[in-house]
């Protein structure tokens, strides 16, 4: 018995140990492979269709190489990691530049060409959800005002909730009266949900969630962004399509929206869908969750609107007609904090990028720890 154990122990060790890379490498590999495996899984059909039509030249392997390259050689023209720089003249690009379609064409003289920052689906659903959310929030406040407390009658008030019993100002409400607000609320909910479904299906089918959902280590980038806004660092952190604070905010908005829909359904049908209402802690708490998610979403949207006007007003154009000149307009290129450096940056001297031009902005890698000269 003992002999067997003594013999087997070292053999197991030798079998496993040499194959195990250092922990850091393992983690990095996991993130890369996990990310691209998910990408391949979700994008497979769309990618295949595009590639058959010859309009889509993104390949996971290309992006992986890019990621490794930038990870190894961080300095250089990093501000334009995802800008549409020309690849003409570089013979080593893996794929030809996509023409038309997404608008990421590069001109032949080596200058940057403005492209479409957001897909038309994103632009349309963005404004539809803006209208739908505005009507939902204001009509919801009118409904809330009919009984602006959460506790059940005859039970202890929500003493820990500072807004218990406080009604919303009338000018923030919509629908005129309780019945009218309910009609608006229960009609607009369909627009909100259908619109969100269109957006989410786009986001996942095209793999674009990767520019929205923060990576596991994005909190470091978020800290750097916060330090930049607080004047604790001089240079704008390098980012992909969105900075890490934006990624957290936008993902949080999607989570709030999901919570709003789920809790909304549960207080719409508290008996028929009683299992859902109970899962949220009962009707009174479900109603409170609904209200809390609305408050959080409203706060995020308010911050979003403020940041649009004070940091990146050019994104208004990106979100309507789609045009956006990353190298001149982006806050990253302007090194812009709120209400500072609002004018376009001078066109940077174009270096022939070492990156293949076929990489879509959304797929461009982000630096995990910010630039080294931070």
């Amino acid at each position, binding site marked *: 018995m003992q002999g067997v154990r003594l013999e087997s122990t070292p053999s197991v060790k030798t079998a496993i140990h040499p194959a195990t890379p250092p922990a850091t490498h393992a983690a990095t590999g996991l993130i890369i492979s996990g990310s691209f495996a998910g990408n391949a899984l979700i994008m497979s059909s769309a990618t295949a269709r595009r590639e058959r039509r010859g309009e889509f030249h993104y390949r996971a392997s290309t992006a992986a190489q890019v990621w490794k390259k930038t990870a190894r050689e961080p300095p250089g023209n990093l501000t334009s990691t995802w800008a549409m720089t020309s690849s003409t003249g570089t013979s080593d690009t893996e794929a030809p530049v996509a023409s038309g379609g997404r608008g990421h064409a590069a001109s032949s003289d080596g200058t940057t060409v403005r492209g479409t920052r957001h897909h038309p689906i994103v632009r349309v659903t963005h404004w539809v959800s803006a*209208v739908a959310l505005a*009507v939902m929030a204001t009509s919801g406040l009118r*409904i*809330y005002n*009919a*009984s602006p*407390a959460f506790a*059940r*009658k*005859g*039970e202890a008030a929500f003493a820990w909730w500072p807004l218990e019993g406080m009604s919303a100002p*009338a*000018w923030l409400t*919509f*629908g*005129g*009266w*309780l*019945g*009218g*607000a*309910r*009609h*608006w609320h*229960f*009609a607009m909910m*369909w627009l909100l949900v259908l619109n969100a479904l269109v957006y989410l299906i786009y986001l996942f089918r095209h793999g674009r969630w990767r520019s929205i959902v923060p990576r596991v280590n994005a909190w470091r980038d978020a800290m750097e962004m916060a330090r930049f806004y607080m004047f604790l660092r001089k240079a704008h952190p390098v980012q992909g399509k969105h900075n890490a604070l934006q990624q957290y905010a936008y993902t949080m908005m999607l989570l709030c929206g999901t919570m709003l829909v789920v809790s909304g359904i549960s207080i719409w*049908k*508290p*008996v*028929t*869908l*009683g*299992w859902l209402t*109970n899962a949220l802690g009962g*009707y*009174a708490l479900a*109603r409170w969750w609904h209200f809390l998610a609305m408050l959080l979403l409203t706060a995020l949207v308010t911050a979003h609107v403020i940041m649009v006007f004070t940091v990146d007003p050019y994104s208004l154009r990106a979100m309507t007609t789609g045009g956006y000149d990353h190298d001149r307009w982006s806050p990253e290129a302007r090194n812009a904090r709120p209400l500072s450096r609002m004018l376009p940056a001078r066109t940077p001297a174009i270096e022939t990028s070492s990156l293949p031009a076929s990489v879509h902005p959304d797929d461009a890698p982000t630096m995990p720890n910010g630039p080294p000269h931070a």
Partner: protein
Amino acid sequence: MHDRDALTGQRARLERVLRGHVHDSAERLRESGQVDRRGFVSLLALGLAAPLLNACDSSGGPGAEKLLASIGARNEKLERWLLQFSGDDRVGARTRAAGAAFPGYFISDTVPQWDSAASGEWALIVDGAVRTPLRLSQDQLRRMSTRQQRVNHYCVEGWTAVVEFQGVPFSTLARMAQPTADAGYVDFASFDEDYHESWDIESAMHRQTMIVTAKDGEPLSPMYGAPARLHGPIKLGYKNTKYLTRITFMPAPNGGYWSDAGYEWFGGT
């Protein structure tokens, strides 16, 4: 409950301002003879905002009204379909009933009380599309009140209360009266002025819908709808007629007090 009037002045002012803006933009358009981008965008924005502001009052323009009504009808279809999956309303075993904290409510100026001297002895009449119309005295009804339940009461305003009621399940009365095949709806009428509400028969036959005669172990007081009231958690509060006088089975719905005032007729939970 109705603050439509409070908003009217504010709305009128907004509309006037808005019309002015639209008018100005249109004038500029006419003078220049072409729409520049800025003009187009502002016209578009105002065009979108005008009906919205106009609709601040729920009756908000015939267009919005019609659209909301048609979506409301679709919602109702969905709600009635969902009803088949409905179980019972549940409250925790240790949850206590609201008792006196449960708000009393009626539309008359004073608490409605049945006047036996003027109207004769109170009785609950069950009629309409039934094979055996019933006339149940208060005594008969009280003796039949064997069901006791503690359920939620869901008000359209958003508050809830736990209520403990004793009474006769509606399904028991329906079995006694034997409604005909075409009786798809039931109207519940009261002596609280002209208050009444009609229900779909599926909601009325829900296990927890009952004709209540006692609350918290005591006979129903006039404040809470004596001598008998309708209560079922499957409908919002306003669908639950108090001060009951007559239950009528019908082939078609005939609205209700709050339903006719603009709240959803279905009002299901």
